[in-house]
């Protein structure tokens, strides 16, 4: 007896070109900011990016992790970056994004979204960073030092956000105030180092943009609960990235509003990301960026990767219901009107970031993954033991055990998000084939 495999209609995302254009503009905007009299700042994707927005509309940022991922995608350039960092004396066991980023500075080359390499790395005017991951603060200390070697002094401000993870409750007031006070001090610092007057109205606008954008992304991810899934994770990487680059910008809100409308439309019409969807998986942590074709290989088995705690919770903001379900986080009742209100609002919002949970509690991460498994109707979880990111890989083996105890099949694989020397593509593919075979999945097409 042969089982009929269902075939869904599929079509490319209409918003695709707009996504590419937005990303292109972002990297070029940072590069050419000085030509327009603007300012450049550097920091992590998790930094409170709405705060420097109060310095004016001509302030451009370059967030480090997406830049490191972009470098990783273009393997020749990555390899040169690694050579440069290792020749400087940094070990290859450090964060791969960080090494890619430093390598780019050391080579004095800047890479654009399409892989174009531009001479002269555009140094930031200041660094605005947060610190939760073991590498984040140190990352920019080294950037400062590397720029100093080239003769440019770059002032740096780092916000300590390691106040614990509230899971499904509110954080104690004094912890919130601890971060709010750092941001207040940070605004004074920004005025001092840039010589600009700070505009609270722009701050309120940026905070509200960030809150809306990060909720919108959660709403888009929720739509992937549909069968067939309207989005696959490989495509989602190109979409969630806007939230890591410019979550505080109005362009990001507009983009996610349009995307949400398009994905809703796909769900209504039953448009699938993978035409033969018959097995739903989620992953965890960043993928090995140079080998995204692994997702296309999975599709040959009718497997769709719906996302991950990483793609949903790195930027998307969620509420946890008492029954253990996840819903997009409820918006505050109104847009902030004052600096005080804006800072408190963005801190209270940010501390609930799902991807921060595992820094404190592996159980919280397992719990969230199990919620995703249940709500998104997931059949198995692929865990990337990512040697390139200590932060997101911490406790991952415990998450594996938690998932297995709950009866969820798990496929762990070793790799590195940004250093291809640590990812064995054919070996991983062979083991993945074994895993799918153990799930009784056969290849549907070559």
């Amino acid at each position, binding site marked *: 007896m042969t089982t009929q495999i269902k075939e869904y209609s599929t079509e490319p995302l209409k918003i695709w070109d707009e996504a590419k254009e937005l990303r292109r503009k972002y990297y070029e905007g940072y590069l050419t900011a000085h030509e327009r009299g603007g300012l450049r700042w550097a920091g992590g994707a998790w930094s409170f990016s709405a705060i420097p927005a109060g310095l004016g509309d001509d302030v451009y940022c370059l967030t480090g992790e997406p830049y490191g991922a972009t470098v990783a995608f273009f393997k020749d350039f990555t390899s040169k970056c690694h050579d440069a960092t290792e020749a400087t004396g940094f070990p290859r066991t450090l964060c791969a994004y960080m090494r890619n980023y430093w390598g780019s500075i050391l080579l004095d080359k800047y890479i654009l979204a399409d892989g174009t390499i531009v001479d002269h790395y555009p140094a930031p005017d200041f660094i605005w960073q947060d610190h939760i991951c073991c590498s984040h603060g140190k990352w920019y200390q080294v950037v400062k030092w590397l720029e100093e070697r080239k003769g440019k002094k770059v002032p740096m401000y780092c916000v300590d956000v390691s106040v614990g993870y509230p899971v499904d409750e509110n954080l104690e007031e004094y912890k919130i105030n601890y971060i709010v006070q750092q941001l207040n001090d940070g605004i004074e610092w920004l005025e001092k180092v840039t010589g600009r007057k700070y505009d609270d109205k722009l701050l309120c606008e940026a905070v509200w943009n960030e809150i809306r954008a990060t909720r919108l992304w959660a709403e888009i991810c929720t739509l992937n609960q549909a069968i067939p899934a309207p989005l696959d994770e490989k495509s989602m990487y190109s979409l969630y990235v806007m939230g890591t680059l410019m979550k505080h910008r109005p362009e990001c809100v507009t983009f996610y509003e349009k995307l949400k409308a398009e994905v809703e439309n796909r769900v209504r019409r039953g448009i699938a990301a993978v035409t033969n969807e018959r097995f739903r998986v989620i992953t965890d942590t960043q993928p090995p960026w140079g080998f995204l074709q692994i997702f296309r290989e999975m599709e040959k088995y009718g497997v769709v990767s719906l996302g991950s705690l990483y793609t949903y919770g790195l930027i998307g903001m969620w509420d946890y219901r008492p029954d253990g379900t996840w819903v997009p986080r409820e918006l505050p009742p109104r847009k902030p009107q004052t600096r005080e209100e804006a800072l408190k609002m963005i801190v209270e919002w940010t501390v609930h970031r799902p991807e921060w949970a595992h820094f404190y509690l592996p159980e919280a991460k397992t719990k969230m993954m199990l919620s995703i498994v249940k709500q998104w109707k997931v059949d198995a979880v692929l865990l990337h033991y990512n040697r390139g990111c200590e932060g997101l890989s911490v406790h991952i083996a415990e998450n594996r055990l938690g998932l*297995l105890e709950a009866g969820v*099949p*798990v496929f762990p*694989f*070793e790799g590195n998000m940004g250093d291809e020397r640590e990812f*064995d593509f054919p*070996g991983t593919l*062979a*083991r993945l*084939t*074994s*895993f799918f*075979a*153990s799930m009784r999945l056969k290849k549907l097409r070559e």
Partner: protein
Amino acid sequence: MITAGVDVGAKYVKIVILEDGKNVLTRSNGIVGFDVWKSATEVFDKALISSNLKHEQIVQVVATGMGRKIIHKKPPINAGEIFPEVIADAKGTYRLIPTVRTVIDVGAEEGRGVKVGENGGVKDFVINERCAAGAGTFIETMARALEVGVENMGPLALKSANVIPMNAQCCVFAESEVVTLIHSKVAKEDIAKAIHDAMASRIASMVLRVGVEKDVVLIGGVARNPGFLPPLKRELNTEIVVPEYPEYVGALGAAILAFEMEG
């Protein structure tokens, strides 16, 4: 009905020809040369001769092992279907020992741990990644360093009762450790035991990731090495069963799968 299972491993091709999914008519093996297809074909011909069969009499062939794709739907073997090693291992072991719950397969290139369900299906598995320290090649490399035939490594190790810690994480570093031990005039049998202890420790820590449940069965070419079993038992703190013809279990599983396909 006659079916065949072909296990195209990293070092050897193993073939089992089966009658009615039960009776083993023949077992054959041969070294894998540079031309894998040619090696597999030669072993297949050898198996046909020893079982006095013609190819047309074999209703279905299933291939497994790392080189399985090379003979998939390609004449003359024409394997009709391919299965990953973990599936064939579980199938073959379950046939021989239905009480099996954990299969440990140590071959030339890979070490695997397979958790087997009550129905013989694969519940979970683990495979060593990017490291030869948990595979037969490790012992072979060390045998060269000790100037001992690989077949003598196990018996040599059994002569020693001494414990010498050795790096089990990397074959290359382990080799330099062996060289250091040779220069330090450590007895060959002690070094041989240290090598087996290190490999057993590596395999045990890998298998413990999926959990060890009785009955535990060791298969693959390394199961024939008498020096490997005692340290593995010690590391896992359990009895371990080694079936007759442990290196053919994957091929047997493939032959059974071929029978089931036709059934």
